[in-house]
């Protein structure tokens, strides 16, 4: 028996892990384009630095583990691309690089590597950066102000609508500006129209399932409309919250990370719902203005539990299905006899 003999089945699906991850990379590119449009070359340079740091630390870890590096495994590239989009365009390079290295080394590889991580590396990297250097991560330059591509930026920074919401006030931006993303905010998250396009692209490519985002967005929208944080009406509150916060981006790219998302439909719905509940609680009672990453880290803990419970439920269902089928056919033959 040869070592490399192919095993049944001998026809395989055309998609591979590379194409699945490439779909996510492709979906992130429009966001980088928007960031470049608003903030110039620095946005792209930050992205490049983050990806380079992620890839190099990933390579180092794989070699330390004694395995052969595999260039087609681009999961670290995805993590590296997601990280800077959540931070301000004026973030210093060392913040982005250390968040990237932290995410790859201490969150992905220490827990087992690809597909084994207990926590979402990108969310953990952002949480690390937000906890260590909150002033650098949360002060944003104005759009179209072209921050310098290299070096530190020290002036022209201010807080965005997210800060106003956090304080309980109403942001003063124009609605059209908010919807088009022309306000002070994280580099890649501001334009929700582009985000919606990315979501539909990923859904139709089959790269992400619909259950978790549907549950998450459903509950978030309902909560925003019915229990607003600020003294505004439901739909207006929804507009402010969804454009200023990072939970739309998170619900598309970070919630559905394959390693941490539960595998069964029922547990995915519960997981999305729990993430929404935690995000809302963190928004009310938390100490940071952008809270989705922290809420996601907390929900990641419950992913396996939900899977375990849904497996128990499915075991019951399978046996019930078998029992009813046997009973039905017995009943039918008894009727005929």
């Amino acid at each position, binding site marked *: *028996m040869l070592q*490399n*003999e*192919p*095993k*049944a*089945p*001998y*026809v*395989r*699906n055309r*998609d*591979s*892990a*590379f*194409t*699945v*991850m490439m779909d996510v990379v492709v979906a992130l590119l429009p966001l980088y384009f928007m960031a470049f449009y608003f903030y110039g070359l620095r946005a792209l340079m930050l992205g490049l630095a983050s990806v380079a740091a992620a890839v190099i630390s990933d390579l180092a870890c794989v070699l330390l583990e004694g395995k*052969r590096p*595999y260039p*087609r*495994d681009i*999961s670290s590239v995805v993590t590296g691309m997601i990280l800077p989009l959540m931070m301000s365009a004026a973030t210093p390079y060392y913040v982005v690089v250390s968040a990237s290295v932290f995410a790859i080394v201490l969150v992905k590889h220490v827990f087992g*590597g*690809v*597909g*084994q991580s207990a926590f979402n590396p990108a969310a953990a990297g952002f949480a690390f950066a937000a906890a260590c250097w909150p002033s650098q991560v949360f002060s944003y330059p104005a759009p179209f102000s072209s921050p310098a591509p290299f070096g530190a930026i020290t002036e022209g920074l201010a807080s965005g609508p997210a800060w106003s919401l956090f304080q309980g006030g109403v942001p003063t931006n124009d609605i059209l500006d908010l919807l088009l993303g022309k306000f002070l905010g994280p580099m890649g998250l501001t334009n929700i129209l582009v985000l919606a396009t990315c979501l539909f692209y990923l859904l139709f490519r089959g790269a992400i*399932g619909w259950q978790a985002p549907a549950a998450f967005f459903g509950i978030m929208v309902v909560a925003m409309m019915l229990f607003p944080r600020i003294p505004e009406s439901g739909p207006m509150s929804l507009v402010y919250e969804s454009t200023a916060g990072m939970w739309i981006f998170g619900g598309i790219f970070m919630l559905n990370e*394959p*390693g*941490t*998302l*539960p*595998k*069964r*439909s029922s547990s995915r719905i519960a997981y999305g719902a729990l993430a929404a509940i935690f995000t809302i609680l963190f928004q009310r009672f938390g100490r940071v203005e952008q809270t989705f990453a922290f809420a996601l880290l907390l929900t990641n803990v419950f992913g396996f539990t939900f*899977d375990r419970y849904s*497996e128990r439920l*499915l*075991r019951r*269902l*399978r046996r019930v299905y078998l029992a009813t*089928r046997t009973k*039905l*056919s017995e009943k*039918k*033959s008894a009727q*005929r*006899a």
Partner: protein
Amino acid sequence: MAGNFTRGIILEQRKEPALRRKLRTFLNANYAGMLFDSDLPYDGAALSGEQIIELAKLARIVDERDGVFLHEKLEKARQMKIEVVVGDAIDDEPYVSSQMNPLLFMQKETGEGLRLAAKAVGNPKIYFAIYKNLSDMDLKTKLPKDIDGVEIRRIHGRYPAEFRTMDDFDSDGPTVMIGVCSLIHLYRAVYEHRIQSTCFVTVAGGCVANPMNLEVSIGMTPTHLFERCGLAEDPGYVVIGGSMTGEICEDPDNYPVGTMSRAVLALRDEEKKRRYRCIGCGRCAEVCPENLTPFYINRYIELEKYQELAFYDIHRCIGCGTCSYICPAKIDIAENIKLAVAELRRRRRQKEGD
């Protein structure tokens, strides 16, 4: 329409051109037309049910659907008072059409064979079951309305279909499914007193020049079959059985093709060797026809924690290979599960032996 399966995968059938080509024979001259001795008349109408079963026993017919002797199957069906007898021509794996093709080209024999089997069982309803996936556009063959007067029920839906079809006919009463090739042999046993010495196989695959269905003498080797059909290129590997559930033939010069072979495929070695690790996407759990969670089963097999596997119902796996098909990391999940089940059995036997 008998069944519509929603869980599973849609496969490209690749049955053309083998399906529409006429069934040809490829016999070993020494064993063609072997007959058995019997005093019974050569006419199906004059025989009783038990006599038909007797003839099936003398002809040593094996049902290609599950490898059971046909006479045993008919005897058991008779005792259990089966109410529906179905001729099984469900070929749900790509390339394989070794049941559909004889059904379409030997309609008289199969129809009469099914009626004989029905007589042997009692007085049941009879159907033929064919898998025709409507979403599959390259099946140029048109299915007739009935085969020799017997109604055809079409199975729609996703692979795997053959395993799950029983449930849909069950609603009419207890069912037995008999492969159509054994029905052809039953016809020949009754009308010609012929022993089953041939089987029906599809010879197909990317490397075969003229894919076709053949009736071959049992014991022919794949090399002979490829010489008959012509090889366009050197095959990467030879598969006996379906493309989803078959096995690799290590010795195509000497392997004897038999009733359970169903197909002999010469495939190119196209799958590039990838070293992905499981990314935890969960697609395997979405497509499993038995609604299991192959992700966790595979994870625990990799970690060698065999005690957790019973919780995930590993013994309900039907071995269809759907999880391996869809896995983007190209992990051989079905293979791992098969080995783990064998390992579990070995451990249990060891424990009982102590």
